[in-house]
């Protein structure tokens, strides 16, 4: 197999590698944006279980390159965040035709539906929620200004208004008017918080479904491709938003627990206290963001560019999100 010998060739060209033999290589997930290959390889006589991550054919606007993602993994790993250990990066297309990086494989599942339905995950839902709060606080401990992460975007003029402008532009780019989403965006504009003093590293997709967990413990925070500088509460709102509870609506922290445990973990590690009302603003923003993404995904199918049943059905998630938005933005005088 050509790719197999190409990867062995890459490994052997590294100074520290004397021998490399691949024992297993399989495509795990062929996502629209990235490909993940299961890669078992014995390096210098030591068997390693790894994942090779590379670009798929189409790449999504706004998402990070593999080299940038690798830099983030390196940074997060060094900061003590539970992420798969990044091992090697290649930007040279001569090996497999595109950039890739190799990271240690972590055990467990990321399937949101399974995780919310089975309490015995991550040492139990309560422990898992607290741990996730701690992990998020560790991510947010990186403040704006790190040279090695200077490729991350900085929101202008501030995190809330930059998103509102982005989502309005997305609505303007579609043929169908969306009065309910406009309603939500107007509310978001009117209720926008004061900009935070310190922008922090935000994961921007920190939610159930994007971390790996075994029955015993959390094993890795995944899907860093939307990371950017931002308001820490935007990650907390995304994690808690109703649309990411996988049907377990009463467990407001990611479908796995009440908010208290998750917040406690975050507050303990960060030393900051979480203002619940401020989080609610970011939950409306989170719901809006998912609605805009779902709309754009649907448009990929509708336009004929990428016919797909999954994309088509994703478009029909929008009304549920609109209902959430109308309920969350209900004023005291609204019926």
């Amino acid at each position: 197999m050509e790719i197999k010998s190409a990867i062995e060739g890459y490994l052997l060209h590294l100074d520290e590698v004397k021998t490399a033999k691949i024992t297993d290589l399989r495509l795990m997930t062929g996502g629209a944006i990235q490909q993940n290959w299961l890669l078992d390889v014995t390096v210098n006589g030591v068997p390693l279980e790894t994942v090779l991550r590379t670009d798929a054919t189409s790449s999504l606007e706004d998402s990070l390159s593999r080299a940038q993602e690798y830099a983030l993994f390196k940074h997060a790993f060094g900061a003590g965040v539970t992420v798969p250990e990044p091992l090697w990066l290649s930007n040279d297309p001569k090996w497999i035709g595109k950039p890739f990086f190799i990271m240690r494989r972590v055990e467990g599942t990321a399937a949101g539906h399974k995780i919310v339905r089975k309490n015995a995950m991550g040492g139990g839902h309560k422990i898992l929620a607290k741990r996730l709060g701690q992990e998020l606080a560790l991510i947010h401990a990186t403040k704006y200004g790190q040279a090695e992460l200077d490729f991350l975007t900085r929101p202008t003029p501030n995190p809330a208004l930059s998103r509102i402008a982005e989502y309005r532009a997305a609505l303007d780019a579609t043929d169908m008017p969306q009065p309910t989403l406009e309603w939500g965006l107007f509310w978001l504009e009117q209720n926008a918080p004061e900009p935070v003093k310190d922008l922090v590293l935000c994961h921007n997709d920190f939610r159930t479904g994007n971390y790996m967990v075994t029955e015993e413990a959390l094993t890795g925070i995944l899907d860093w491709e939307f990371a950017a500088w931002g308001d820490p509460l935007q990650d907390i709102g995304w994690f808690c938003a109703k649309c990411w509870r996988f049907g377990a609506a009463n467990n407001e922290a990611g479908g796995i627990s009440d908010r208290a445990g998750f917040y406690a973990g975050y507050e303990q590690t960060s030393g900051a206290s979480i203002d619940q009302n401020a989080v609610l603003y970011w939950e409306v923003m989170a719901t809006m963001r998912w609605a805009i993404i779902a709309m754009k995904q649907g448009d990929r199918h509708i336009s004929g560019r990428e016919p797909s049943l999954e994309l088509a059905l994703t478009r029909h998630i929008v009304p549920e999100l609109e209902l959430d938005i109308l309920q969350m933005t209900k004023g005291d005088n609204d019926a």
Partner: protein
Amino acid sequence: MRDKPQADDLLKIAESTFIQEILPYIPADRKYTALMIANAMRIATRQFDKNKIDETAEIAALTKLLGYLDVSDDPDTLLTLNKQFAAAIRAGAFAPGTAGHSKARQHLLSCVQNRLAEVNPKALNGGNNDR
């Protein structure tokens, strides 16, 4: 004139046959795709059953909200009115405290509920809010 059974009936029977007779034999790694197919067929069936969202009522409601005297006979009336409504919301014409705020919100709520009744009726009861 078409013969019966027609699209609505055919879709309904195709969906229930698929669920009862084919789905149990689908391998685990294709189950998600199979469930998506069944879901798409259910949505289409409901859209036939409901004989389309009442667009005349939506046009009348929007005409009133926007303060127009007559309902236009432009064939794209609904699209045009919704574009105007969306722009008016963005401009703040229905901000809290304005005369039309409450009626506009009620209108949006009822439109969303109508669409949900077709694409995911469970979510109407605050129940299943997942994919």
